[in-house]
């Protein structure tokens, strides 16, 4: 249950094609994250799968069955919206029970599943409140509760954490991951935050302008980005890109090196002047200027390192961690 296949799916709004022909297959039980900059088509893709938008051409199959023309209600999918989309006039209990009420499930079973979901999500004490009386995190859990009671073929999440503050976001991220561990149901999760993608996904789909740039596990994308876009998008802080002679030496148009793969050494291949330093305690990031390679390079040092603004440092890239890209931005193997 929960295999979803997209076969040459396209979507146009009037004359504008936002999703060019796209193939993708999502395996049963997988946690798939669609990630990309805003406007890349990731939400549209999710809404196509949900049935909230018509596909212009192509086919969507859910568990082998063609669902392209099925209305959303018939697709056995549950969705958690960015705004949570809770029904403001219903109590938490009624919100969670709503999909079962629509499916005309028997009342005792409805109650049993609501209680169970509330227990799992720590909502038992709030069942008789209205959404307006809950905090952001609690609303989020109600939305998830409403999704799980249906026992859907797959869960769809549309940027569910973007309205939460930073601390809650980390907590909910863990809760959703644990939920996936326990339910083992397919989940499709849309976000623009690559940290969410890296920490939660079994499989990441990187999108840009409606096209898939790369599909793979988080570490695949980190280690072997297929092109410059993916290389720059995955990883934080961003990969440093160097063009010109330094790149030519490695037989590439552009080379990329992540901040964590540059060591600060007594002497070294590269040198520059320290600008801003970001002290995180566990790590220190230096923005290095005047390297002759790129405007600014970011370098990570482990722990607390005490270089000051204006200090001259030397850097050595780890040679096996260099990424090489050709003129069209594609990775050179």
């Amino acid at each position, binding site marked *: 249950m929960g295999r979803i296949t997209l076969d040459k799916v396209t979507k146009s709004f009037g004359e504008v094609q936002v999703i060019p022909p796209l193939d993708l297959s999502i395996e049963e039980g997988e946690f798939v994250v669609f990630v990309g900059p805003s406007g890349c088509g990731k939400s549209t893709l999710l809404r196509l799968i949900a*049935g909230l938008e018509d596909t212009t051409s192509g086919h969507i199959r859910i568990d082998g069955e063609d669902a392209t023309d099925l209305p959303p209600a018939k697709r056995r999918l549950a969705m958690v*919206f*960015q705004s949570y989309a809770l029904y403001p006039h219903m109590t938490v209990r009624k919100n969670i029970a709503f999909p079962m009420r629509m*499916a005309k499930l028997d009342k005792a079973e409805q109650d049993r599943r609501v209680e169970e979901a509330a227990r799992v999500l720590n909502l038992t004490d709030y069942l008789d409140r209205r959404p307006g009386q809950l905090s952001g995190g609690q609303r989020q859990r109600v939305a998830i509760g409403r999704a799980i009671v249906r026992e859907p073929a797959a869960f769809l999440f549309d940027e569910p954490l973007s309205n939460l503050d930073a601390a809650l976001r980390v907590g909910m991220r863990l809760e959703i991951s644990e939920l996936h561990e326990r339910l083992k149901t397919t989940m499709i999760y849309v976000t623009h935050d690559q940290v969410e993608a890296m920490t939660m996904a079994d499989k990441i789909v990187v999108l840009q302008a409606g096209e898939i740039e790369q599909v793979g596990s988080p570490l695949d994308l980190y280690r072997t980005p297929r092109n410059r876009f993916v290389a720059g998008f995955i990883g934080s802080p961003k990969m440093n890109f160097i063009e010109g002679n330094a790149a030519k030496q490695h037989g590439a148009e552009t080379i990329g090196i992540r901040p964590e793969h540059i060591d600060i050494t007594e002497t070294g291949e590269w040198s520059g002047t320290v600008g801003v330093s970001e002290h995180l305690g566990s790590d220190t990031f230096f923005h290095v200027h005047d390297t002759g390679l790129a405007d600014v390079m970011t370098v990570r040092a482990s722990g607390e390192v005490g270089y000051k603004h204006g200090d001259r440092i030397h850097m050595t890239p780890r040679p096996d961690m260099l990424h090489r890209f050709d003129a069209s931005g594609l990775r050179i193997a």
Partner: protein
Amino acid sequence: MARAVTPRRKMLNTAVAWIIGLLIFFPILWIVILSFKTEGDAIRTPLGVLTSGWTFDSYSVVQERSDYFHHFWNSVILSVGSTVLGLVIAVPSAWAMAFVPGKQTKNVLMWMLSTKMLPPVGVLMPIYLICQSLGLLDTRIALTLILMMINLPIIIWMLYTYFREIPGDILEAARMDGAALKEEVLFVLLPMAVPGIASTLLLNIILAWNEAFWTLNLTAANSAPLTAFIASYSSPEGLFYAKLSAASTMAIAPILIMGWFSQKQLVRGLTFGAVK
């Protein structure tokens, strides 16, 4: 929000505002007072009016003239009937335009509003003749339909501005949760729309209740609502101050109370959402 001011300043504001408020409200207050006086007392000097005794006589006289309740009942039927009928037609339209907006939605809305700009006197003759030829002059049916038509654009607009504030996400969530169109409307949209529908109902009943062009021109004894009934006091009977006051008080009291409840909606309803 409001900044702290000195008590003296606040006292001054209060005094000025209350004096002006009372002056504006005075004519209404005055007819309420006169309605509890005898005809003789009602035309005495202001001081004489205030010091004379109180009586319910005028109300019983107006009540005895059974035609008062006949006209009151006409007003109720016309205003409630036209508004409810209008809502039945407008709710689906406003729903569709708010949640499934198309390229033409804005134009359709603007065009609907433009029909409201047609001066009634411009179409007085045709409407009069149509009613005449259908035998509908001085009937409640004709007037109910006409009042519905003149308020329909306002009803649609008000509902539209309310519906637009319901997040589309929630309706999509209902669809994902397995609700069919009927259930989506019944369980999700309507409960959320009830406050908006209620204020639309209230404001349009007020507007229909006070409408005084068509009701004066298309009715006679049979279907005349209170607007036309009161107008019949314009000549000699107008000098019976106490009875006129009692009838007027009864004509405006229900609407005044409804109006006070719908202050907020009044603004957005009558400005078509341009001022909230």
